[in-house]
C-alpha cells in the first residue's frame, strides 16, 4: 500500500513489517513493552508528517476517537 507521501512508501513498508511482527508475537500475547520499531517509526513519521503538511491535509487538533457527545436523530 502506498503512503500519502510518495517518498515515504518504502519507509512505511519497512515500519509496517516490523510492527506486524511485534504486534502478533509480543503485543497480542500480553508483552507490550520493548517496541523494537521506534527508530523505523521515527524515520517514517518525519517523512509522512512533512508530506501531510505540504498537502495541507487537516489532521491537526482532532480529538482522538472523535467527539464524545451523544449522537441523536434530531437536527440541530
Amino acid at each position: 500500500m502506498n503512503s500519502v507521501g510518495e517518498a515515504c512508501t518504502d519507509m512505511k513498508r519497512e515500519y509496517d513489517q516490523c510492527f506486524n511482527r511485534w504486534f502478533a508475537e509480543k503485543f497480542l500475547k500480553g508483552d507490550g513493552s520493548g517496541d523494537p520499531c521506534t527508530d523505523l517509526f521515527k524515520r517514517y513519521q518525519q517523512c509522512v508528517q512533512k508530506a501531510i503538511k505540504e498537502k495541507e491535509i487537516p489532521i491537526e487538533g482532532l480529538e482522538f476517537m472523535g467527539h464524545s457527545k451523544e449522537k441523536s436523530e434530531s437536527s440541530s
Partner: protein
Amino acid sequence: MVKYFLGQSVLRSSWDQVFAAFWQRYPNPYSKHVLTEDIVHREVTPDQKLLSRRLLTKTNRMPRWAERFFPANVAHSVYILEDSIVDPQNQTMTTFTWNINHARLMVVEERCVYCVNPENSGWTEIRREAWVSSSLFGVSRAVQEFGLARFKSNVTKTIKGFEYILAKLQGEAPSKTLVETAKEATEKAKETALAATEKAKDLASKAATKKQQQQQQHYV
C-alpha cells in the same frame, strides 16, 4: 438530521488473527478505491492498550447528478481518519472512522466494536454503527424560512391593496389619509421582509458554522 445505521458481522477467525489482519488488510481486491494508507500516531498506554490513528485517502465516487451539483468536490480525494484502541487483555478493539474533508457536503462517522463471538470463541464479532449527516439540511431550512416570511409580507400588502382600492371604488376620494396608509403599509412590509432576511441569513450561517464549531470543540 442524521441517518443512522446499525449492523453486525461475524468473521470466522479468532480475535487475535482478526486484530493482526486489521493492520494488513490494504490492499485487497475490494479496496481499489483506497489510494493511500499511513499511520500518523501510535502509542501504547500504561494499561497496555494500543492507540493508533490511521490516515486513508480514498477516491471520491459520486453519481453523475451529484457531480453536476457539486463540481468543486469532484477533483478532490477524500481524507479519512481511523482511530483505534486495541485491548488485548479484554480481547476487544474499538474503532472510530470519519472523513475530514468534503465535510460541508457530507460527514460519515463509523464506530465499530470488535469482540469474541459469544457463541463461538474461535470467531470474532463486529458491531458497527454509523451516522450520515449533511449541513445541506440547514441550508434548505433557511430557504424555507425565508420563503415563508416573504410570502407573509406579501399577504399584508395584498390585503392593504384590496382595502385601498375598495375604498376608492366605494366613492371615497383617495384622500391624503388613504395614500399615507398605503405608504405606511409598504414601509411595514419592507421592515418585515428585512427582519425575515436577517433571520434566514442567521439560520444559514448557523448551519454553515455548526460543523466548524464542532471541529473547534475537538481541539485538544
